[in-house]
């Protein structure tokens, strides 16, 4: 899943992808572009919302020349530094204390866009920062509680999993690091079906409900089965004489091997149906399994086989191209 870990606070310039020398115009352009790409209603990826908040937080600080100057001078914890602090004295005291400001872990209050220094020196807090936390962005001011967006992630399943159902452990990148989820896969899930995890999507603000997380089932290509809805298709290779004379062969199905009767005179392309041997339907009839006949000839004939085929060719009046 995309979206890097957020244990370490990333540099605001890095988040917006601009150099430290960027002009206000460049910062705004970068922000607008990234915000459009990562808005949770435009980008259903579960990591997009966190990126959107990060981008908004970075823009909040860098778009205001005054807070930007303070960020440049004092780093990510600039809100805790009193207004009248001399940047150089600050740097010296930092170096003396031996702590690297940039690598410091995010404070508990920092994740929602509010400064970690709320309890500290109020004079150092920009009013915009105080109000910017509603949607994690400056544009989100004063809109009241807003429910979280629905998110979507793909879940690739094997044909066997789609057939039997089961559980799948999935790890998503969440705001507080890795988020393990146990997804129950219903037996008979089809391609494109959505599995809903209520309340596991984007977070609502100010007590509004969270969005839902949807896993969209994608059934991975299978070496043997092709899928159409709940129907399964499988190749059934036959020798020419088996196809001509009829036979009984074993066909592998997700339920195990099944004997299939091939009637005499079966040509390539004919489908033999195994009723309800496809994917199950939770509230209806299971799909079918179709064995598609494919006549296969030996690449190398033995002398005896060649003799018999030649004899057949001489005797037979069959013309498959006759109109």
């Amino acid at each position: 899943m995309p979206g890097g870990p957020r244990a370490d606070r990333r540099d605001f310039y890095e988040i917006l992808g601009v150099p430290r020398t960027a002009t206000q115009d460049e910062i705004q352009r970068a922000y607008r572009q990234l915000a459009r790409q990562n808005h949770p209603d435009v980008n259903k990826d579960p990591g997009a919302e966190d990126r959107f908040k990060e981008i908004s937080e970075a823009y909040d600080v860098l778009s205001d020349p005054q807070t930007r100057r303070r960020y440049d001078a004092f780093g990510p914890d600039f809100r805790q530094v009193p207004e009248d602090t001399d940047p150089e004295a600050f740097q010296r005291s930092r170096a003396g204390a031996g702590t690297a400001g940039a690598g410091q872990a995010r404070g508990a209050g920092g994740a929602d866009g509010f400064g970690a220094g709320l309890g500290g020196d109020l004079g150092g807090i920009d009013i915009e920062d105080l109000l910017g936390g509603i949607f994690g962005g400056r544009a989100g001011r004063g809109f009241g509680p807003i429910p979280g967006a629905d998110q979507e992630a793909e879940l690739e399943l094997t044909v066997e999993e789609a057939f039997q159902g089961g559980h799948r452990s999935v790890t998503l990148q969440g705001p507080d690091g890795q988020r393990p989820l146990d997804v129950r896969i219903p037996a008979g899930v089809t391609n494109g079906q959505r599995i809903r995890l209520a309340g596991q999507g984007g977070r609502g603000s100010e007590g509004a409900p969270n969005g839902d997380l949807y896993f969209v089932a994608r059934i991975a290509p299978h070496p043997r089965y092709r899928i159409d809805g709940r129907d399964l298709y499988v190749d059934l290779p036959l020798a020419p004489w088996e196809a001509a004379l009829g036979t009984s062969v074993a066909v592998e199905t997700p339920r195990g091997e099944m004997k299939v009767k091939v009637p005499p005179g079966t040509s390539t392309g004919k489908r033999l149906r195994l009723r309800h041997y496809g994917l199950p339907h939770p509230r209806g009839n299971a799909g079918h399994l179709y064995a598609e006949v494919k006549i296969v000839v030996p690449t190398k004939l033995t002398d005896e086989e060649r003799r018999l085929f030649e004899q057949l060719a001489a005797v037979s009046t069959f013309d498959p191209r006759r109109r």
Partner: protein
Amino acid sequence: MGYALVLVRSASLNLEAFARTTGTHPDLVRRLVALGVLDADRDAAGELWFARSQVAVMGRVQRLRAGFGLNYAAVGLVTDLLDRIAVLEAALQEARRPGR
């Protein structure tokens, strides 16, 4: 924790209930219906009724407005475009599917 497939409840909400559920003002809801951003049915008494699915639509309207500072007419355009893209992406996905 395990999660199962959940059926979405589909009872309708009247204007008051809808506004309460979405944490919005009924006047705003009425305006959005007039703009065609929200879908609502009007009963014989003239009261507006909203399908449950419109709660999510309202959430999206609020997020788009908050995230981009869009006005409500622009929100209508954006939601229409997003819906069209979702339909196209689903069709594309379907067409790309391997197999039959």
